[in-house]
C-alpha cells in the first residue's frame, strides 16, 4: 500500500520554544494513525501544520507525494474535526454538512445526495432540519465528522474530538469511529492524550514527547516492546525502579532489590515492570521466570483494575501487582506473603 502522507524533517519553533522537533513519519493510505502524547507535547501543532493553519519552520509535508508548501488550508485535500467540533451554531445540521460542498459550487442535486448519504452513514437521518445547538454530545460529534467526511478528503485529521464526552459515550464512540473508518476507508490521523483511545482504534501509533517522536509502532508493539523509557512509562501502567548497578545479569535497584535478567547487554538505569505481567504463585514448570517473595501492604480495590500494593521481601521497593477478580485470590489479606514470578522478557531495562 502506498503512503498518503509523508512528513520530512519537520520543525516548528515559536520564538525560542521548539514545539515540533525534526519529526519524520509516513502514513499509509487507508490507515488509522494516532499521535499520542500528553498535553503540550506539540501534537496539536503538528496537526495544525498538516492542515495548513501553521507554517512549518523547517521541513516539508507531502500529501499523495505532492509538497504542501505554501498551500492554504482551503486548498489542501485534508479536513479536520476540531477539539470543540466548531459546528456553525447559526446553521442547522444539513447546512453544516453542506457548507463545504457549496464552496465547491456543485449543483444542488449532487449536494443533496451527498449530504443525505453522509448523514445516513453516521446515523443522523431525520435530523437535517435540527439546530446543532439542540443536539446531544454524541450527535454533535457525528455532525462534525460528517461535515468533514462529506468533502471526501484524502486524510481526515481529528484533534481529540472525544475529549468533551462522558466516559460511557466515549467508549461507544471509540468503537463507532473505528468502524466508520473501516467502512469508508479514508485515512484518519487522530490526536489524543488518552492511550486507551489510541490503543483501541489505531493501526499505528506515534508516541510524542517534548516535540519529538519517541516510537512509531503498532499498538501491540508499543505495549509489548517499548523502545524508550518514556514509552514504557507512558503507555500502559508500569512499576518504575531506579537501578544502582548491575553485576553480570543481576540488577540492583536503589532500594536494595536484586533480580536476574538474562542476556543483559549494556548498563541500564531504570527498570519497568507492568503490574499485569506479574504471575502470582507461578507453577515451577515455567521456564525463564524469575521468582521472588513479596508482602501485601494494601489491596487497592478497583473492580477489574484491582491491584496489590506490595513490598518486595528483602528490600524497601514497592511493587504494584494486578489482581485478577476470578475468586482464585479472594482469600488474600494485608500482611500475607506471596510468591510472585515474572518472565524475564517482561523486565524492561533502559
Amino acid at each position, binding site marked *: 500500500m502506498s503512503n498518503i502522507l509523508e512528513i520530512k524533517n519537520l520543525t516548528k519553533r515559536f520564538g525560542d520554544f521548539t514545539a515540533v522537533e525534526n519529526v519524520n513519519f509516513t502514513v499509509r493510505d487507508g490507515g488509522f494513525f494516532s499521535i499520542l502524547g500528553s498535553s503540550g507535547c506539540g501534537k496539536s501543532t503538528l496537526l495544525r501544520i498538516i492542515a495548513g493553519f501553521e507554517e512549518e519552520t523547517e521541513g516539508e509535508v507531502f500529501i499523495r507525494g505532492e509538497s504542501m508548501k505554501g498551500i*492554504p488550508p*482551503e486548498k489542501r485535500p485534508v*479536513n479536520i474535526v476540531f477539539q470543540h467540533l*466548531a459546528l456553525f*451554531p447559526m446553521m442547522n445540521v444539513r447546512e453544516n454538512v453542506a457548507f*463545504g460542498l457549496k464552496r465547491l459550487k456543485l449543483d444542488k442535486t449532487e449536494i443533496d445526495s451527498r449530504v443525505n448519504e453522509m448523514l445516513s452513514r453516521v446515523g443522523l437521518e431525520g435530523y437535517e432540519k435540527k439546530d446543532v445547538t439542540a443536539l446531544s454530545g454524541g450527535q454533535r460529534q457525528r455532525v462534525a465528522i460528517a*461535515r468533514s467526511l462529506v*468533502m471526501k478528503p484524502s486524510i481526515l485529521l481529528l484533534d481529540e474530538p472525544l475529549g468533551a464526552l462522558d466516559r460511557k459515550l466515549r467508549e461507544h464512540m471509540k468503537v463507532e469511529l473505528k468502524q466508520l473508518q473501516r467502512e469508508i476507508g479514508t485515512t484518519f490521523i487522530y490526536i489524543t492524550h488518552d492511550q486507551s483511545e489510541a490503543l483501541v482504534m489505531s493501526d499505528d501509533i506515534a508516541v510524542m514527547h517534548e516535540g519529538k517522536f519517541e516510537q512509531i509502532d503498532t499498538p501491540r508493539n508499543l505495549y509489548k516492546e517499548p523502545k524508550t523509557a518514556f514509552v514504557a512509562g507512558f503507555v500502559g501502567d508500569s512499576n518504575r525502579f531506579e537501578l544502582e548497578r548491575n553485576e553480570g545479569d543481576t540488577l540492583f535497584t536503589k532500594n536494595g532489590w536484586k533480580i536476574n535478567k538474562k542476556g543483559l547487554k549494556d548498563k541500564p538505569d531504570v527498570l519497568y515492570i507492568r503490574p499485569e505481567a506479574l504471575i502470582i504463585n507461578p507453577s515451577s514448570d515455567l521456564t525463564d521466570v524469575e521468582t521472588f517473595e513479596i508482602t501485601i501492604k494494601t489491596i487497592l480495590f478497583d473492580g477489574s483494575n484491582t491491584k496489590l500494593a506490595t513490598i518486595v521481601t528483602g528490600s524497601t521497593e514497592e511493587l504494584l501487582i494486578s489482581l485478577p477478580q476470578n475468586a482464585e485470590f479472594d482469600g488474600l489479606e494485608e500482611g500475607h506473603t506471596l510468591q510472585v514470578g515474572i518472565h524475564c522478557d517482561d523486565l524492561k531495562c533502559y
Partner: protein
Amino acid sequence: MEQIIKPKKPFNVTLYLLIIPVLLWLVVLIVLPHLDLLVSSFKIEDDSGAMVFSFDNYIAFFKEQIYWLTFVKTAAYAIGVTILAFVITFPIAFYLTKVISKKNAAFFILLLLIPLWVGELVTVYGWMVLLGDHGIINHFLMTIGIIDEPINMLYTNFSMILGLLYMSMLFMVVPVMSTLESLDDSLIEAASDLGASKWTIFRTIIIPYSMPGIVSGAIIVFMLVIGDYLAPNILGGKSSLWFTEQIYNKFLTTFNWNEGAAFGFLLLMLSSGIIWLALKLSGQKLDKVGGS
C-alpha cells in the same frame, strides 16, 4: 410528627424598594408625558378658543409637502448613517476583538470612548472649527496649494452626516464587539478548512454570527440619529431639514404644541416602524438582540 412545615414566602421588601425608582422613571418620565402628548395631539382650538377633538394636526402633516419630505429625508439619512456606521465600525470591532491582544484592545477602547467624555455640543463645535470656510482643513489645503478657494463643507449634508456618524458610531462598536468576542476562532478555521475563501467566511460565518450585535447596535445608532437635534441643526445649517427641527419649530417658534405633539408621535411611529421592519428582514428577535 408527620407535619410538613411550609416556610412562608417572606414579603421581599428590598426587591420592591429596588424596583420603585425604575417604575417611577418609566411612569413619570416616559409613560405619562407620552400619554399627555398623545391626547394633546388630537386636540385643536376651535373658533371660540376651546379645545376640541380633531385629526387636523395629523392632516396638516400630510397636506404640507415640506413636512413629509423632511420626514422621508430624515428616515432615509438615518438609515444611511446607520449603514455607514456599520461599514466603518465593523472592521474596527473585528480588529479589536480578533486581531490584537486583549491588553492592547482595552487601551484602544479607552481611546474610542474619549469623544463621549466631552459631550455632543463640544464635539459639534469641534467639527465647525475643522470644516468651516476659514477652518483648519480649508486653511491647510490652501496653504499647501491644492485649492485656491475654500471648499464649502460646513452647513451641508456632508458635515451633518459627519457629525451624526461621529456621535453615534461608538454605540455600534460596543455591541458588535461583544458578539464577536464570543465567536470561537475555530469556527473561522473550520470554514477555511472546508474550502471557504476569506470573503465567504466573512459573509457566511462572521456576519451571521454577529447579527444580534449588529442589529442591536443598529437600533441604538438609528434611534440616536433620527432623534438628534444638535448635529443636523448646527452642522447642517438651515438647509438640513431634519424632522426634529420641525418639531422644535412647532413647539418653540409657532407655539403650536398640539401639532408639535402630533409630529412627535409621527416620528415615534416612523422609528418604531423602521426598527420593526429591520428586525423582520434580518430575522432577529427583539429579546435576543437586547440580550447581547
